[in-house]
């Protein structure tokens, strides 16, 4: 754009008249001006680190509710819905319609984004419109709008214009898409149909794993299951054995007791016998004593004690008659207290 004014020279004797335009200021206008301002703002926002903030937010793979800022009547709306349905996604779309192309657009879009972000159910926000000139898309390069998006805690998916168009909102958004269809895929990263198939496969794997793990161990489990029965059988055998042993032992015990009783009886009998024998001995002893007394009554000593004397020859044989005494000539007279010699002197 050039500022200045026309100038007219009427001419003179030596000069022709002329008409000219005097330019006083020159500056870039139209797209050139917009591009220059956009570039300056882009540098500034980037320097402030606003391009990274949205990218750090977690984008849910399967949001249940997404907010969309777009024009109420437009191809973008239709394309986005088609994209979501192709995903097999049947969640809730919350529309926040806003003008997308005039001087009221930027504040209206900013307000719509903020309102959507204020709803706790809204898990992602899509901002979209169709293609146009840079001037048409200029609202999406608005500084306030872009700062708002950058600072938002809800991820924003931008799909403004066509592939060749680059607006500032694309730089600050969590993800920039070239078309509303792509924006649908970015807002709902999960293809629900594929996800269902994946889950069915996972469920099958789990069932197989559980059954397989059990089946692989079935022989072992069967062996383990037999274990108790085997142990039971073993115990039963052991028990039977013990029972037999106990029975045998008890029989032995009875026998033993019998033997014991017999032994006891033997001892008792023996004692009785011994006692009986003692009595017999006593009796015999008494008899013996009586015999002894009787014998002693007959002993020569007893007779000698009574004053008799025993006549013995030189060999100690008793001299019991006269002829024996005459023949012996010399005899011994045995008294109770001793013996004296004597001579047979005369015969009668």
């Amino acid at each position: 754009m050039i500022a200045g004014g026309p100038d007219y020279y009427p001419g003179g004797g030596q000069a022709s008249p002329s008409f000219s335009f005097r330019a006083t200021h020159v500056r870039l206008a139209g797209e050139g001006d917009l591009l220059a301002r956009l570039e300056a703002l882009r540098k500034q926002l980037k320097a402030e680190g606003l391009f990274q903030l949205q990218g750090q937010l977690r984008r849910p793979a399967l949001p249940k509710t997404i907010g969309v800022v777009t024009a109420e009547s437009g191809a973008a709306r239709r394309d986005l819905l088609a994209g979501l349905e192709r995903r097999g996604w049947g969640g809730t779309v919350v529309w926040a319609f806003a003008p997308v192309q005039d001087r009221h657009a930027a504040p209206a879009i900013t307000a719509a984004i903020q309102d959507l972000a204020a709803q706790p159910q809204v898990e992602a926000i899509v901002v979209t419109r169709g293609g146009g000139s840079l001037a048409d898309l200029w609202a999406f390069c608005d500084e306030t709008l872009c700062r708002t998006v950058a600072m938002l805690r809800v991820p924003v998916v931008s799909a403004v214009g066509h592939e060749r168009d680059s607006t500032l909102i694309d730089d600050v958004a969590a993800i920039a898409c070239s078309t509303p269809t792509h924006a649908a895929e970015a807002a709902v990263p999960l293809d629900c149909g594929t996800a269902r198939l994946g889950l069915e496969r996972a469920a099958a794997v789990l069932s197989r794993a559980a059954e397989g793990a059990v089946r692989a161990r079935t022989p072992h489990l069967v062996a383990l299951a037999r274990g108790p029965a085997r142990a039971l059988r073993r115990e039963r055998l052991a028990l039977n054995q013990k029972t037999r042993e106990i029975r045998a032992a008890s029989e032995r015990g009875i026998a033993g007791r019998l033997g014991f009783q017999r032994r006891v009886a033997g001892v008792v009998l023996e004692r009785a016998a011994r006692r009986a024998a003692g009595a017999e001995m006593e009796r015999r002893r008494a008899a013996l004593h009586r015999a002894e007394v009787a014998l002693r009554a007959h002993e020569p000593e007893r007779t000698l004690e009574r004053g008799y004397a025993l006549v013995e020859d030189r060999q100690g044989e008793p001299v019991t008659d006269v002829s024996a005494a005459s023949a012996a000539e010399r005899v011994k007279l045995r008294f109770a207290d001793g013996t004296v010699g004597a001579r047979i002197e005369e015969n009668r």
Partner: protein
Amino acid sequence: MSEKPESYEAAVERLEQIIDRLDSGQAGLRETLELCGEGRDLVTYCTAELDAVGEGLKELKLDELAANLAASTEAGGA
């Protein structure tokens, strides 16, 4: 389910870990059965999440959503 997964992605990630572990063949019987139980819970959770967005796309205008929210808040508060 012992605890609700943090998100669908977290559930799927854990599910994949479980399946990798099961595929490795290194899990013992007890671990296998536990993993299968946990995996089934995760599949149930993920299926419920998919079902929640599987009944057809619903469209609301922002002011309708705000009105619904206000009504439910009032009902909840009453």
